[in-house]
């Protein structure tokens, strides 16, 4: 309870700070692309008229699906690469080759294979995040202290058990970092993937406002995405506090 209240305060402080910076920028540069935040807030009624909730839900669903898929695929693949020299030999070049491919350039292929609706959207979010997850899991595995295996291996642990009791908890902090980074990335990609085949989603909302040069709407959308992002990231932090009690002391 107390922690929640603390987070709320952090949130408010950050919110104020951001707005202060924004206001300063507005008066400093005096260009239409940086509107006065007060004007923007005065217009916030349109958010309700635009039924922003639906947009948020659509975006959240796409992010959740993309992120979940990435973790489902990325964590096992990263572990495989971290542990098996043979798997690494095969996957390493594959990953390193396909990682830098601009996934957005594969949009036509994605649309063909998964359609113009959520399929291709989630596929692109997945393609962008999964590599980040793979790389960080693989690197994380390499940092595990070998003594950790001595106790488990000697007790006859199976591979699955080693993953469960050693590898997963050991890389958990890094994995959560990677989730945090991926969330940030996913939120930014929204903006790209929601530019087609939909009328819903925060990305669409902002893009739509942008293309009609409705900067107030655009900034409102950006604000909403910021707040959502903050909530998601802070959620990961809470989760991290929960899951990594053992290293909590170090986190203080």
């Amino acid at each position, binding site marked *: 309870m107390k922690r929640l209240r603390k987070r709320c305060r952090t949130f408010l402080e950050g919110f104020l700070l951001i707005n202060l910076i924004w206001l300063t920028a507005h008066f400093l540069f005096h260009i239409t692309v940086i509107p006065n935040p007060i004007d923007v807030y005065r217009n916030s009624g349109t958010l309700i008229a635009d039924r922003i909730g639906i947009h948020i839900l659509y975006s959240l669903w796409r992010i959740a699906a993309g992120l979940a898929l990435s973790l489902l695929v990325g964590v096992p693949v990263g572990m495989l690469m971290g542990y098996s020299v043979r798997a690494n030999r095969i996957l390493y070049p594959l990953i390193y080759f396909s990682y830098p491919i601009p996934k957005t350039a594969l949009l036509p292929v994605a649309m*063909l294979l998964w359609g*113009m609706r959520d399929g291709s959207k989630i596929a692109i979010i997945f393609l962008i995040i999964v590599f980040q997850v793979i790389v960080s899991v693989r690197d994380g595995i390499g940092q595990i202290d070998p003594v950790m295996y001595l106790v488990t291996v000697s007790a006859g642990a199976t591979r699955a058990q080693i993953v469960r009791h050693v590898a997963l908890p050991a890389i958990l902090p890094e994995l959560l970092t990677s989730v945090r980074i991926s969330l940030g990335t996913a939120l930014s990609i929204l903006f790209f993937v929601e530019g087609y*085949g939909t009328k819903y989603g925060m990305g669409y909302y902002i893009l739509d406002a942008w293309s009609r040069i409705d900067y107030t709407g655009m900034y409102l959308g950006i604000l909403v995405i910021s707040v959502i992002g903050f909530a998601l990231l802070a959620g990961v932090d809470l989760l991290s506090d929960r899951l990594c009690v053992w290293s909590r002391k170090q986190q203080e």
Partner: protein
Amino acid sequence: ACSSGGAGTSSGQSAQASSAKASSEGEKPVIRLGMMSSSDVIPFALINRNKLDEKYGFTLDLQVFTSAKDRDAALQAGEIDGVLTDYVGVCMYRNAGLDVRITGITDGDYLLLAGKNTGIKNLSQIKGKSIAISQNTLIEYALDRILEKNQMQPADVKKEVVSRIPDRLELLRNNKIDLVLLPEPFATLALDDGAVELSSANTIGLYPAVSAFTGKVLEKEGRAIRNLYQAYNEAVDYMNSTDLSEYESTVIDAVGYPKEMNGKIKLKKFRRSKLPPKEDVEDAIQWASAKGLCKSDLSYDSMIDDVAS
């Protein structure tokens, strides 16, 4: 911002919903048309608004894209049946081996504008000035033709590639660039902001915007598409004979004007759909082939399909 209330009829999702309903009633074919917000869209939006599609026995599913690349990707993927595009676009489709044929003209203008602080008042002053355009598109084509009509070379201006249209407008507004060539609604916005109109595509007799469908769809749904053009013509008649205030909200939504423009919008007379003139298309082919966008032996006849008559 987003489509609200009554304009929901033009949204992809609701059209889909109604098509699902329609297919359960009778066999109304669905025409999926990809487009980007511009004034060309108005008659199509009106077809949906005035329920002309029901009247003519088809369902129009308008898919709005925010970039031409996404629209093209959807066409490639078979997610849409036709597009609102232009001569140059069709040339490129053909060059890429896509069987896309022009089936009618649409109305849209492209205005050459100078920034309010540049001091440029007419075309004679634009030599050596910078201009924000997109490359290998009808925008560049229109620019080149406007220049030629006024005894200048394309190299006489400094072309700056800026792929997103709103960014071009913003650059002009903030004096980062001297000239732009803009479609609606951006042109109106720029003029509103003090920009000076120097020329436009329509002024030199250039009407490069067209609607086009893939050959496969034309074969399969030829009837429905013919009906579409009948509905289009009815929508155009309605536009030309009705006071704008009656359908202004549809226009604002379809073209993507900011809401503040309510009451300030002016529309020219729209033309009924027909096939584009041969020499215009051939001129565009020539321009595009010189740029390496298509082969010069592309013929007018292979590019059009007279589905409407």
